[in-house]
């Protein structure tokens, strides 16, 4: 199965990539890992005349500390994130989320930036970045701007990036250590499938065991990855506990707007599973934060 033909470019810097993108406008697409774009091109769901491969831009790969934040290059693979000692130590939620994406070969090739910009509502990174209250950095070649995770996803396969910009980095606050708990739970029909429902949770408990920070991101229960705002607000300042978790899981469903999916279940089923998986995810995060059920 072949895509239509295209011209191929392999820039070595972000500036070069942006220049090519701006030169060719809507006829151009950025190729990162290609785990979504190449199948779409092969099935001729998208037509691309100019393919700009950012796979050889070294500055877009890797992870580093930046003050209290962790910054991840847009072309960093899921596998690199999953196995990074820095990520496992500073933002273990990301490592857990990465382990759920696709299958091993897809994780070896696919990238966090590519996944985010593709904005598939069942992509796993969106919920994670929302739960962490992270930022997505985009560049037009002259300056980089940060887009808040709440403002990034606009609709299915649509983000707030502008024409001529590319996603360069993802920045998340370090969240680990005493009092921190996290969890990503993903319901899938079979290994490697897109999520039926996914829930990313980040909790912080203060010295008294009260919830001082809560982040809950939801996968595949609406047109975009979304924040379970009511559930987060409910948890803040509370002792949490099993009743709190059950209540928060009910509230999380209120944020969702799933549609019937012929493969992965009806809207009603997804809502029901969203409650179950939010409950499980919150419970794991709560226990990892040192909370006693």
């Amino acid at each position, binding site marked *: *199965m*072949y*895509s*239509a*033909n*295209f*011209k*191929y470019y*392999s820039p070595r810097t972000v500036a070069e990539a942006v220049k090519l993108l701006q030169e060719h406008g809507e006829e151009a697409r950025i*190729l990162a890992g*290609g*785990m979504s774009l*190449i*199948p779409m*091109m*092969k*099935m001729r769901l998208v037509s691309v005349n100019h*393919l700009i*491969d950012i*796979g*050889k831009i070294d500055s877009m790969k890797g992870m580093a500390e930046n003050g209290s934040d962790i910054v991840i290059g847009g072309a960093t*693979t899921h*596998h690199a994130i999953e196995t990074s000692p820095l990520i496992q130590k500073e933002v273990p939620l990301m490592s857990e989320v990465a382990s759920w994406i*696709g*299958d*091993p*070969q*897809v994780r*070896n*090739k696919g990238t966090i930036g590519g996944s985010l910009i593709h904005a598939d509502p069942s992509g796993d990174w969106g919920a994670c970045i929302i739960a962490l209250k992270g930022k997505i950095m985009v560049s037009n070649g002259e300056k980089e701007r940060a887009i808040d995770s709440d403002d990034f996803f606009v609709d299915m396969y649509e983000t707030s990036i502008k024409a001529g910009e590319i996603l360069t980095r993802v920045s998340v606050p370090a969240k680990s250590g005493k009092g921190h708990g996290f969890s990503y739970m993903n319901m899938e029909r079979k*290994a*490697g499938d897109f999520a039926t429902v996914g829930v990313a949770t980040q909790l912080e408990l203060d010295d008294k065991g009260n919830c001082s920070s809560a982040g809950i991101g939801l996968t595949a229960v609406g047109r975009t990855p979304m924040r379970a705002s009511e559930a987060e607000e409910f948890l803040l300042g509370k002792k949490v506990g099993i009743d709190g978790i059950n209540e928060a899981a009910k509230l999380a469903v209120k944020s969702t707007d799933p549609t019937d999916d012929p493969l992965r279940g009806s809207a009603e089923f997804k809502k029901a599973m969203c409650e179950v998986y939010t409950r499980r995810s919150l419970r794991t995060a709560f226990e990892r934060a040192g909370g006693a059920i």
Partner: protein
Amino acid sequence: MVYEETFEDGAGLEDLVEVQFTLNGRKRKVSVEPRELLATVLRDRLGMTGTHIGCDTTNCGSCTVIQDGQSVKSCTVFAIQADGSDIITVEGIGNVTELHPIQEAFQEKHGLQCGFCTAGMIMQSYWFLKENPDPSESEIRWGISGNICRCTGYQNIVDAVRLAADKMKTKGGS
């Protein structure tokens, strides 16, 4: 092996670009259209038909090869992306007289039925056992979760990967 062909939308030989990579230790240079896939270039242009194309949609893993140390599904990589890479296919890890320990293990445990998925299973195991040289059964199942055996002969495949781990521990093996 070079074939001349014009595809339905008229892209012809004038659009060829040159790609160089190391394939199983040998430097290879090949002219391809940008849209040609690594899997088809390996098979049709370079005659390395050990790499199979099963689903052609990133699901089945039959086309798994090693690119720069990482296992990838070569039906979902444009050959041109592999320019400058180091590629290893099933032809590169052992031969008929000297099988790789993973190949030996698949033979001994009968880790195949029809054999179509085998090259992909072996190449994924090759990568996975480097990542995790002493895996549990469930780790093996997770490690080959991107490879499908439509004969459903997973039990023996998992046994073979476990045996391969033992063989590689005692023998070394690359």
